[in-house]
């Protein structure tokens, strides 16, 4: 399938092949999904997120993102403890479609080692990953 979209990918964060983004600020990593993923899913109707205090590991499940069209798993790129979830998404899951990189963030994780993120893609790499 040919992809048609405007690709604006913030360069301040890392990306996974499963389309999550990870923004590091000190020892806290914020997780969301890319605008490309949100557009692909179409209108998001439900986001299931972990409880604060949950221990997550790299590659483990963080929750589920559901749209009119499909349900997809949200994976963690890092190991750590969930310290905050975006409560606004409970009533307004469409925030993910409207602002995937900002207001549509999903989880904040306190990490033990930010080094795990180094294996993930840069914005440029993610762009070409999606284009191919």
């Amino acid at each position, binding site marked *: *399938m040919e992809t048609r979209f405007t690709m604006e990918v913030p360069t301040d964060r890392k990306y996974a092949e499963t389309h999550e983004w990870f923004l590091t600020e000190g020892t806290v990593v914020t997780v969301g999904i890319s605008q490309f993923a949100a*557009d692909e899913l*179409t209108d998001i*109707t439900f986001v*299931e997120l972990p409880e604060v205090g949950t221990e997550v590991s790299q590659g483990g499940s963080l929750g589920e993102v*559901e749209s*009119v*069209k499909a*349900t997809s798993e949200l994976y963690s790129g890092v190991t750590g403890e969930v310290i905050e979830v975006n409560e606004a998404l409970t009533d307004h899951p469409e925030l993910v*479609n409207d602002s995937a990189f900002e207001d549509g963030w999903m989880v904040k994780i306190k990490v033990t080692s930010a080094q795990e993120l180094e294996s993930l893609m840069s914005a440029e790499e993610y762009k070409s990953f999606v284009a191919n």
Partner: protein
Amino acid sequence: MATDTLLHTPLYDTHVQQGGKIVDFAGWEMPVQFAGILEEHHHTRNACSVFDVSHMGRLILTGTDCESLLDRLCTRNLQDAEVGRSYYGHICREDGGVLDDVIISRFEKHWGIVCNASNREKIVHWINQHTEGCNVKLRDETTTTCMVACQGPKTLELVSEFTSEDLTKLKRYRFRARQMGPFRITVYRCGYTGEDGVEVVLPTSLVGMMVPKLFGTPKKPHPIIKPAGLGARDTLRIEAAMPLYGHELSEDWDSLTAGQSWCVDLTKDFIGADAMRKRSEQGLPRKIVGLELEGRRIARQHAEVFAGGSPVGEVTSGTLSPTLGKSIAMAFVAGAHATEGTELEVAVGSKRLPASVVPLPFYKRAK
């Protein structure tokens, strides 16, 4: 017809130019959405949306034996079919398994069949298998014509403007065919959204003329008529509890078991009638029901349905109803659990969500 490349409808370039998100659907590149599924859904319920349904099969049958052949192939009684009317029915195998659901229309000198894109080759083959010794000729007009579904409360008024015919006089499941020189334009008052509306079939060569009338121009789009994609078509038809082949209908079960006995005439003979009469005597193993789930999660096809911890059925289609703001699903459940108000559970992800049986359809337009 086996093709490696995906087919394009005559409106493909228009979809791309309108920002349609294109997906592979039954061998065709079709728009799944334009402005967004929810927005298009609401627009259809409130105003007028145009869906490209040119991928659906359009077959023309001519010859003196059309009536008897179609009556034998279809679950609906077509012996008294009137010119100018369209009939929804199923084409089944001997064992009752549904090969496709179709709309059959009787024209003055021929018959028309609209079938699902995914079943077109199968249906063409099936008809050809049964025409031996019959005076019937089949012509596939799918790729030489265009079909658009215009749906929503403002449709008749808007479309009447450029067909210069008062379409409000056209009754439901009736059509009007107009010959313009060598071209035939047919307007059917059918639909698959639960709204009022029409389907327009015209030759591919007239599409260029139709597009600006329907949609306006890129610089000045039509203020009310908007394009909609397959995504909204699905959420709309689920709210209206209309069956979709591959979900509620399948070769694996007959029309009665699918809960569509209203379009089956067991008093006549048709292929599959014996099996269905037997089925009817034995009693149906399950019923189709509407479910309303607690919360916003969507129950997808094949999600298991439970009553008091035991499996009693399976979801066929589900969505978060944009109109009702509720999670709704159609499901096949054992008859004992099909009464309105029955409390059931549906497996969604790792959870079992409470659901109650509600009447179908979920949505009915105000008359």
